[in-house]
């Protein structure tokens, strides 16, 4: 008997996979690295999160605060106010503000450390720990920042209404507002430029400090990140 060939023609299969691949490549936006994964509560609001000119504040269930900054995406302004350039400007501004308020313990950053900062999507360490954190390799940074039990992770936030002596979170937000990027400032005034993200089970007392601090800074309008409500809810 003649043996039948078991060769299967894979061309059709290949066509399908290439199509699928193209689809995924075109529709995808990459997941941003975040130190903790939070499940946002759902709402009926249909406003989309802007991808450019956004300062998002992540509050972990433990109450640790992280900030992520996205800059301008316009082709003309990308060089001056794109995410990386913007982060550098904000870091300089924040360090200046911090050193002014803490003249006894100023911090200084090298050019490499500033460059490293501009590559980080989401940051959250106290100012005193910042130089050491920025000198680490990226894998080490990720390891440090996702360890919620460490004391030197998360931007310190407390209940502070004194505009003369800002806490570290307020310094960062002030620096972001004063970065010089007009589009970001405009978005922040409208309330679209600040997004607060927290887990749905997080107690209100934990998020309250962040909201209160924003209020003190007169950033009364901001957005809250939510997921779309499903039909049954």
């Amino acid at each position, binding site marked *: 008997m003649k043996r039948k060939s078991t060769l299967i*023609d*894979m061309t059709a299969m290949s066509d399908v*996979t290439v199509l699928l691949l193209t689809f995924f490549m075109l529709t995808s*936006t990459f997941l941003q690295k975040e130190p903790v994964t939070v499940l946002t509560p759902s709402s009926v609001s249909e406003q989309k999160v802007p991808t450019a000119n956004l300062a998002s504040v992540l509050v972990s269930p433990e109450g640790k605060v992280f900030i992520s900054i996205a800059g301008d995406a316009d082709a003309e302004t990308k060089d001056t106010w794109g995410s990386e350039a913007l982060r550098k400007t904000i870091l300089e501004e924040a360090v200046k503000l911090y050193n002014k308020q803490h003249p006894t313990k100023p911090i200084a950053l090298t050019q490499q450390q500033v460059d490293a900062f501009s590559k980080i999507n989401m940051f959250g360490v106290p100012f005193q720990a910042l130089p050491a954190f920025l000198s680490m390799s990226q894998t080490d940074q990720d390891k440090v920042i996702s360890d919620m039990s460490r004391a030197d992770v998360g931007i310190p936030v407390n209940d502070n209404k004194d505009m003369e002596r800002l806490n570290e979170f307020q310094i960062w937000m002030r620096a972001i507002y004063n970065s010089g990027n007009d589009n970001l400032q405009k978005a922040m005034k409208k309330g679209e430029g600040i997004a607060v993200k927290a887990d749905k089970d997080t107690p*209100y007392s934990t998020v309250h400090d962040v909201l209160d601090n924003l209020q003190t800074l007169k950033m*009364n309008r901001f957005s*809250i990140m939510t997921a779309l409500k499903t039909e049954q*809810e």
Partner: protein
Amino acid sequence: MAQIEQSDGGKKKKGAQKKMSIHVDFTPMVDMNMLLITFFMLCTTMIKSQTLTISLPSNEKVEQNQMNKAKESEAITLILTTDRNANGDVKKDENGKPINTVYYYEGMADYTDANGDGILDNNKLKAEHFVGNDGKIQQGIRKILHDRNKAVLDKIEVEKTRWRNKEFAPGNSAANDSIYQARAREIRNDSTLTRPVVIIKATPEASWESLISALDEMQINQISRYQIDNINKADSVLILDYLAKNPKK
């Protein structure tokens, strides 16, 4: 498909070109594509999250006489709380939904305790839940807010029907939408209608989700005047008194 097949006439006729069958094996290609697809599927977010814009009241001190006071008849205060167990984890009911309770009172709270026994004589506090709709019928806290804002909702409902029938701008759905939105906004902010003022207060243990649900109810019920306020001792007194009178099962 992957091979270029030609009839093997090589043997039959002289001079005819020898024809080859070219087979390309696509299996490794498919393998690689599958790997790439898996990678993209795992690394992407398809759903973009939504946002909800809120504005908090300004922190600046306002003189007592310049304060914007809500009329007592219009005010409704919601106090949010979430049941938690000893570890601080949110308790879930049998359907796996978190137990969020909304206490509410209308107008001013009544703290009178004439005989001084620590039990309030006339505690107006009531408890409700976020239960959403049962078909078309509002339930729970949504029903209460719906009834309070009925004047606005009825008017918007009329506009909504006109919007559905595309009466504002026939044939131009974008213009139809924007005219409807503008009209709805006008009705929401129409001070001649009886509209409630909602004050939302969250207890420290209230989950973030319950606050968002409360803000969501404002959107659903087209309430334009609401604010988030800090909880104070008097509110806790009301809740404790309520719980003393209506112990949890």
